[in-house]
């Protein structure tokens, strides 16, 4: 950090940064400066000379954070809380096609915003959930639904795990049964124990009633 601080280029950048700051507190400008000269900002933090300015800079930057949030087109309010609830549920059942592992509700992508707006206006115009889902399916395919529909193509997906579970349970049962059965029957026939088997046989033969 100190090495950075010593370099003239960066102190220059820092001064530029601070003059910009004091001239006009425009958050966008500040943000651009930060992006352009991030080491200058860090170097600036080491400076004892401009302690006040640096804290001011940092403070203003922090309180201005919400200004960096993306502004979206204001959304039309929904007439009733039931509709708002339905919309929320719908958005969490639809997939954002840009960041594919997020729902429409969670995604910050521009397209997700457009689709949310579209779904909202469809909800407001009194369309049912099924109609809205169909609207998006016609355009984006089944992929837009977070839950894939049950049809012949997705049988393996939906029922495969249960088939595997059933198969596994069956194998476990079968192996267990076999093991118990073998434990009962293989004592006499276990290989390598010929001497013991012979002895056992002799004992048995002895006990046969005469």
């Amino acid at each position, binding site marked *: 950090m100190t090495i950075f601080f010593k370099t003239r280029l960066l102190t220059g950048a820092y001064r530029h940064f601070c003059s910009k700051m004091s001239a006009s507190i425009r958050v966008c400008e500040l943000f651009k400066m930060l992006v352009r000269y991030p080491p200058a900002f860090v170097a600036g933090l080491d400076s004892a000379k401009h302690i006040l300015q640096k804290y001011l800079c940092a403070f203003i930057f922090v309180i201005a954070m919400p200004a960096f949030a993306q502004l979206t*087109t204001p959304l039309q309010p929904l007439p009733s809380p039931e509709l708002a609830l339905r919309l929320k549920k719908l958005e969490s059942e639809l997939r954002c*096609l*840009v960041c*594919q592992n997020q729902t429409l509700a969670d995604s910050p992508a*521009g*397209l997700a915003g*457009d*689709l949310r707006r*579209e779904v909202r206006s469809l909800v407001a115009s009194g369309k049912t959930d099924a109609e809205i889902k169909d609207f998006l*399916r*016609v*355009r*984006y*395919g089944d*992929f837009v639904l977070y839950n894939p529909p049950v049809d012949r193509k997705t049988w393996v997906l939906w029922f495969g795990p249960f088939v595997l579970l059933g198969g596994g349970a069956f194998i476990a049962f079968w192996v267990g049964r076999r093991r118990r059965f073998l434990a009962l029957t*293989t004592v006499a*026939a*276990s*290989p390598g124990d*010929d001497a013991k*088997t012979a002895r056992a*046989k002799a004992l048995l033969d002895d006990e046969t009633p005469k």
Partner: protein
Amino acid sequence: MSSAATVADQTNKAKRAWQFFLPLVVFFTLVWFLYQGLFLNPREVPSALIGKPAPQFSLPILHTPGDKFSPASMKGKVWLLNVWGSWCASCRYEHPLLNDLAKNQVVPIVGFNWKDDPIAAKGWLAKYGDPYRLSVSDIDGRVAIDWGVYGAPETFIIDKAGIVREKHTGPIDAKVMNEKLLPIIRDLQKVM
């Protein structure tokens, strides 16, 4: 006695071989699927539009916003609809190929300027070349939803009857152009 031992021995051997090979088979099946997965592109969502009539719209033309363009006016021609934006980095990648296509007059290309600022869009075309017969501006992205657009660049091939025949998502490279798009375009152009 000894025969019973050999029978047990053989079943044990068969069982052991089975126990050895089954996990191996399962393992290689899994590897095969995972290996296939390496070459799949999860961003490539199959278009729901293929084989269906091109969605109609009427959008202002980028360079002459007073005029409107509608896909119906392209009836009788095979044409491309290319979704682009000046904010889209991979559009710049495929742009030289589109310029070539336009220069050789292979097929008319209509630009679909998606969620863009018209001034920035015009500047972008002036800088990188304008292969488009015309571009339409879809500033709020409403029409793009009808076309199932989810990421620029996207290229649709529309046949003479106005049916969407193919869609390519992502930048076109020479391979995609020569092996996928051009053959389809030529085949469609042969159809009366």
